[in-house]
């Protein structure tokens, strides 16, 4: 019997390592440590319900487990074979318990290729990885294919870069292979910076060997003997697991000189990001690896021509790599049957926001947003009304009801005014103000712009300021036109992908939620009640008993009134902190 405990960052944040400890202790007390194996795995994806403990072989899926639950899991489930009811997942619609994750809406529509080993193996055991076919693809490629054939297989598979751009991976490899040089580099981009995206981290934490293997295959294909992983310093667990995996692979000779008895040699080093979103852009990433400011440079030359230390370099992101070993094992033809015509395979999304099932999901390209949000995501939290879904992070756009049945792939998302991005998917409900959401993303862009080119450095700042003015109720209709023109110019003239996409949240909200902008500008109203300056706290004279509680808690002294008499809020002083409304026991204060 195996007890798999999720060791993803989310679950660990909720003490999943303590669960492992407790389980082991309980088992030891019952002298079952030899019969039952406790394994800390990578992310199961269902973060909303974390920490997750999965019991095999009967595939029981326990959710929101606390360390103290270890006792009942061991005593009830392990010994007596009875499922622990209170830890089972309940279907939000039927309220029925579902013990097998396969039957949960969250997992039903998923197809796990990149995440195939996440939540299945112990990421710190290379043996378990090998048992699940790790390095078999590398062996196959080294043993049976020339680099040209292997690149052709990659081209045939139709795999496109999962980092956002969607450039065909095989072609990218071909370019790097075609440039002759004494030294070339393979770089894994693990600088996942989208706020609200954690796909790459989960893969590295759950299945680091798939990335190592794919990088080695990549090295063989383009003629590189060195690999570098550029990883966020904010991901300590992923760094640790990757380091362990690299060491294990070296111990086994799967990295190093003459891999698997061939004359192919390859090794991997780590480089750490230091908190700059723009370093997701490959030229910026390369500068950062060289110890410079992570400012992008104009392409061409592309890294395939002149990259790290001026040598031909191929950069792919983590999820792209995670797909690669399976493609070689099962063949390009297997892979390109999954997905849509131009977007093959699956995509991992970090589903978050106002949704019931927050988590990491992997679905075939072509799945609709409706399936993702309502079937996998379990619908909108607290029964609220769906308003928008934001894909592609700060580079993407907000899609609405009318896009729900669009099959998701690279091209349909762009056609709808958003983009795939790295896979963040944030769901918003009626309580979200779309102008504020656009402002939120611009705030991010302004902070993360490298400052090198003027449209991004100054233009995004001005976009943010305009949005801020509108949120404060001081915008005019003219401002909306300016927003649109400025957005187009920034997209059209910026140096790198960051600026070329940063106005997308503005343009997509202008397109899909123009009425909300108009309300802010014309009526000075924020229908979601988010924009503080467009709200007023009002005391209802009928309800107010004059207890003075509100006046005492008001931090700026905006509330006046006689004891036992009705109170009043001076709107010119009020800072809309909401302290009064929390304090009022008589529901006399409301927001208008």
């Amino acid at each position: 019997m195996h007890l798999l405990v999720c060791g993803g960052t989310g679950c660990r944040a909720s003490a999943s390592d303590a669960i492992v400890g407790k389980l082991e202790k309980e088992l030891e007390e019952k002298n079952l440590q030899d019969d039952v194996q406790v394994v800390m795995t990578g992310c199961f994806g269902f973060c909303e319900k974390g920490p997750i403990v999965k019991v095999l072989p009967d595939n029981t899926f326990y959710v929101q487990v606390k360390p103290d639950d270890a006792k009942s899991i061991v005593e009830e489930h392990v010994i007596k074979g009875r499922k622990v009811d209170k830890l089972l997942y309940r279907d939000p619609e039927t309220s029925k318990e579902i013990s097998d994750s396969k039957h949960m809406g969250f997992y039903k529509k998923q197809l796990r290729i990149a995440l195939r080993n996440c939540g299945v193996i112990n990421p710190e055991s290379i043996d378990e990885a090998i048992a699940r076919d790790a390095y078999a693809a590398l062996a196959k490629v080294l043993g049976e294919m020339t680099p040209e054939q292997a690149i052709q297989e990659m081209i045939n598979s139709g795999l496109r870069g999962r980092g956002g751009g969607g450039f065909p991976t095989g072609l990218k490899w071909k370019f790097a292979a075609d440039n002759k040089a004494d030294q070339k580099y393979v770089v894994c981009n693990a600088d996942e910076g989208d706020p609200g995206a954690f796909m790459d981290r989960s893969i590295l934490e759950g299945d680091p060997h798939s990335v190592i293997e794919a990088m080695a295959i990549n090295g063989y294909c383009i003629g590189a003997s060195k690999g570098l992983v550029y990883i966020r310093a904010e991901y300590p667990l992923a760094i640790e697991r990757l380091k362990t995996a690299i060491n294990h692979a070296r111990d086994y000779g799967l990295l190093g000189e003459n891999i698997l008895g061939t004359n192919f040699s390859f090794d991997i080093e780590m480089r750490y990001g230091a908190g700059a979103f723009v370093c997701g852009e490959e030229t910026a990433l390369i500068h950062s690896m060289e110890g410079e400011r992570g400012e992008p440079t104009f392409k061409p030359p592309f890294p395939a021509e002149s990259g790290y230390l001026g040598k031909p370099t191929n950069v792919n992101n983590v999820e792209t790599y995670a797909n690669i070993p399976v493609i070689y094992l099962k063949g390009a033809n297997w892979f390109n049957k999954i997905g849509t015509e131009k977007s093959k395979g699956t995509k991992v999304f970090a589903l978050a926001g106002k949704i019931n099932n927050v988590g990491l999901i992997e679905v075939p390209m072509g799945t609709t947003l409706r399936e993702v949000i309502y079937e996998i995501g379990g619908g909108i939290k607290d029964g609220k009304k769906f308003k928008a879904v934001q894909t592609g992070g700060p580079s993407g756009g907000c899609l609405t009801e009318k896009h729900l049945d669009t099959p998701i792939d690279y091209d349909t998302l762009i056609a709808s005014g958003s983009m795939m991005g790295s896979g963040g998917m944030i769901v918003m409900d009626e309580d979200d103000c779309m102008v504020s959401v656009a402002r939120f993303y611009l705030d991010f862009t302004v902070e993360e712009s490298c400052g090198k080119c003027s449209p991004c450095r100054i233009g995004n700042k001005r976009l943010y300021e305009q949005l801020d003015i509108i949120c404060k109720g001081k915008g005019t209709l003219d401002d909306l036109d300016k927003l649109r023109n400025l957005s187009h110019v920034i997209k059209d003239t910026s140096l790198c992908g960051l600026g070329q996409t940063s106005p997308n949240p503005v343009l997509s909200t202008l397109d899909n939620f123009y009425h909300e902008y108009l309300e802010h500008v014309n009526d000075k109203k924020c229908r979601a009640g988010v924009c503080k300056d467009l709200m007023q706290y009002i005391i209802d004279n009928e309800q107010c008993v004059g207890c003075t509680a509100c006046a005492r808690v008001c931090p700026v002294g905006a509330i006046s009134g006689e004891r036992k008499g009705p109170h009043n809020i001076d709107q010119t002083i009020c800072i809309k902190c909401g302290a009064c409304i929390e304090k009022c026991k008589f529901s006399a204060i409301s927001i208008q």
Partner: protein
Amino acid sequence: MVKIKSLADLQKLKADMQTKVDLREKGESAENLVQVKVAMATCGIASGAKQVMEFFMDELEKRNIEAVVTQTGCMGYCYAEPTIEVTLPNQDPVVFGYVDTKKADEIIEKYVKEGILVDGIIPVNYETIDDKNK
């Protein structure tokens, strides 16, 4: 640590490790496999359930039958220990009582391989363990 120097080395290691994670792969697709659950509560163990379970594990593998053998708690038929529950793919589970290794052999040959029911079925309403626990 021993280096993996060839494809053969890798395959050997994989084979060695296979059993270790088998359970997880099969667990994912348990309904397509033969599932044998052996009641291993105190009463079952006292009646020789452990030997029966080991027999199933060894023999099913020897006879090349993909199956998941697991232990479970008391099924409630203490009078008929050792009891086992066998679930063939897409069929309702069947519970057998008084299973010894000889009986086990018969269950494998007849029921598991050919689907022919053998003596010793505990005549209940084929309630599964999962249902029972509710």
